[in-house]
């Protein structure tokens, strides 16, 4: 489909650890369209950050990509060598990594760091840089004076915006934002999300928003993928998914968000987070699922289309036949 920008097929990313093989991302497939905002939700340890790193080919040992394809605009990124990928990284796909605020070099000025990000991937003369950097800062809502400052002089929100500026510096087609607002106050979070949305409208890139906060996902994304224990358990349009979540895990995640409209008792998801070295047999969610059936312990459900553009991996739905759009 010409409208598709990214097509991930059967991606497996494992880590060889002291105690065994950690299957952080286990057979994940999803698509991102052009100019689409795609969300990936799930709690810590579900594999979403590993997925983000894999998309930007930033997996380092002891992690490795076991198999899979990442087809970006027709090319399988995993088949490119380092030189070829350099053409893509940052220019066409960029990433705002988790805790990016802490990734800023404390002894370099902001402008120097942005310049570094640019010149590492493009040959730009200094004169142009001096024009582009203030433009960039303005586009993320920072005063141009920020360029001369050091990271410790900036607040959390400003640091996050500086990192976003670095990510969009070369006008990529795809931006991956990994937990970009988790450490921020709620008002700053809103501001950052607003900034991201503005930038997206202006520059037209696709955005993959990785966040564990379901409310944030609801407010921003077009489509949402819910991950659990290294697999995608549900995917669908934001409106459909939130109105009627199908997978029990999605349902519980959404209902665990406390609300200000009514007081309700806190609903917990029973059990412990899954062990990725030795995941539960069959459906990985079965030890914690309130609707567990016998088959859930034995057979792993596949993603099947239950409603238009909506896939669920659960034995409560579908008949096990895998369908892909």
């Amino acid at each position, binding site marked *: 489909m010409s409208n598709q920008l990214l097509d991930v097929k059967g991606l497996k990313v494992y880590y060889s650890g002291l105690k065994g093989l950690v299957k952080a991302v286990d057979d994940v497939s999803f698509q991102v369209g052009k100019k689409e905002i795609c969300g990936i939700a799930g709690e810590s340890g579900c594999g979403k950050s590993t997925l983000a790193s894999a998309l930007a080919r930033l997996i380092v040992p002891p992690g490795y990509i076991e198999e899979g394809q990442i087809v970006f605009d027709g090319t399988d990124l995993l088949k490119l060598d380092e030189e070829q990928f350099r053409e893509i990284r940052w220019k066409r796909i960029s990433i705002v990594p988790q805790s990016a605020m802490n990734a800023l070099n404390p002894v370099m000025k902001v402008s120097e760091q942005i310049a570094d990000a640019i010149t590492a991937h493009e040959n730009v003369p200094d004169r142009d840089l001096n024009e582009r950097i203030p433009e960039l800062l303005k586009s993320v809502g920072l005063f141009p004076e920020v360029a001369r400052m050091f990271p410790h*002089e900036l607040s959390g929100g400003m640091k996050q915006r500086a990192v976003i500026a670095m990510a969009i510096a070369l006008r990529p087609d795809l931006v991956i934002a990994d937990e970009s607002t988790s450490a921020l106050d709620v008002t700053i979070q809103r501001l950052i999300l607003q900034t991201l949305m503005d930038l997206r409208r202006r520059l037209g890139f696709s955005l993959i928003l990785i966040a564990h906060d379901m409310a944030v996902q609801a407010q921003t994304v077009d489509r949402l993928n819910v991950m659990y224990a290294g697999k995608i358990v549900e995917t669908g349009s934001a409106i459909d998914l939130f109105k009627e979540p199908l997978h029990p895990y999605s349902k519980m995640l959404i209902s665990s*968000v406390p609300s200000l409209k009514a007081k309700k008792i806190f609903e917990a998801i029973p059990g412990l987070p899954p062990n990725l070295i030795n995941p539960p047999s069959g459906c990985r969610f079965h030890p914690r699922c309130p609707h567990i059936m016998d088959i859930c312990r034995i057979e792993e459900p596949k993603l099947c289309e239950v409603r238009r553009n909506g896939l669920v991996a659960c034995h409560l739905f579908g008949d096990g036949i895998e369908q892909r759009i």
Partner: protein
Amino acid sequence: MDWSPVICLVMALSNESRLEVNHVTKIFQLRGGVFKKTKELVAVDDVSFSMPREPIILTFAGETGSGKTTISKLILGFSKPTSGEIIYNGKNIWKMSKEEWMRYRKDVQAVFQDPYAAFNPFYRVDHILKLSIRKFKLVNSKSEVEKIADEALDAVGLRSEEIAGKYVHQLSGGQRQRVMVARAFLLKPKIIVADEPVSMIDASMRASLLNIILNLKKEFGVSFLYITHDLSTAYSLSDRIAILYRGTIVEEGHIDAVIERPAHPYTISLIDSIPTPNPTDRWTQRINIAMDNGGEGDKHKGCIFYDRCPNALETCLQKRPGMIDIEKDHRVKCFR
């Protein structure tokens, strides 16, 4: 026999609050370097509140820089107020004798934000439990130590077999946090200061921890000072709330009053910025927070929220507003 003086005394005692914080201010001196003057950072500015004897859950809500952590440190006695007093059962905590201070320590406990950092990685997790028991001489014999530890773990829903002999890194975030609560509860305190207890725990496990807090209050009568930046959990959890901004309480009162009828512009913007898990109910207005220039801008004598207030008046620049009662159990620090 005339019981009235006794009754009066009893009533007086029961009306007196357990913990009172009176006009406490904490100013940090920052060294500016060789050529700059010493800068002052006003972390807490004239804060007053009290915790009554009946068990309640009082929330302190504020963002980073609001001073909420400093307040918790002041209450726990880790830091001395620059001015003002903290009174417990009628006595200023900095003027207490050694026994009174031990009593205070026992009655006022804490749970911290980062469940991993709160445990010494060198020891097993039950080290901190046994330590508390020993230090406060809760028991007389060694065999009873195990019993009390088990009771505390039970109250937070953990079985002692689950955590026996384990180190911090072998437990999940939720389990660690529960052990921390168990440790605090062990000493049968009257007040537990909980500083962002759930912000570092996954959503699926937050609920169980919050339920534990509610349970401790209902069943064991423990009051909580719940410090958070997340208003939504506060709404379902607490009885009263105080909103902090840059070191002062800008609005406080009963939880329903403040959340359903917020008066201070900061409270309003805070509530408004909380995302709801409903894609059809998205933020329509754009917000425009003035650029944060690191707190340099409040050299004027007026209201601290002046820079960000959409309804600012002339008077706001010149005078500090005081606390005004709006309705029953609902006060606001604003001229409107």
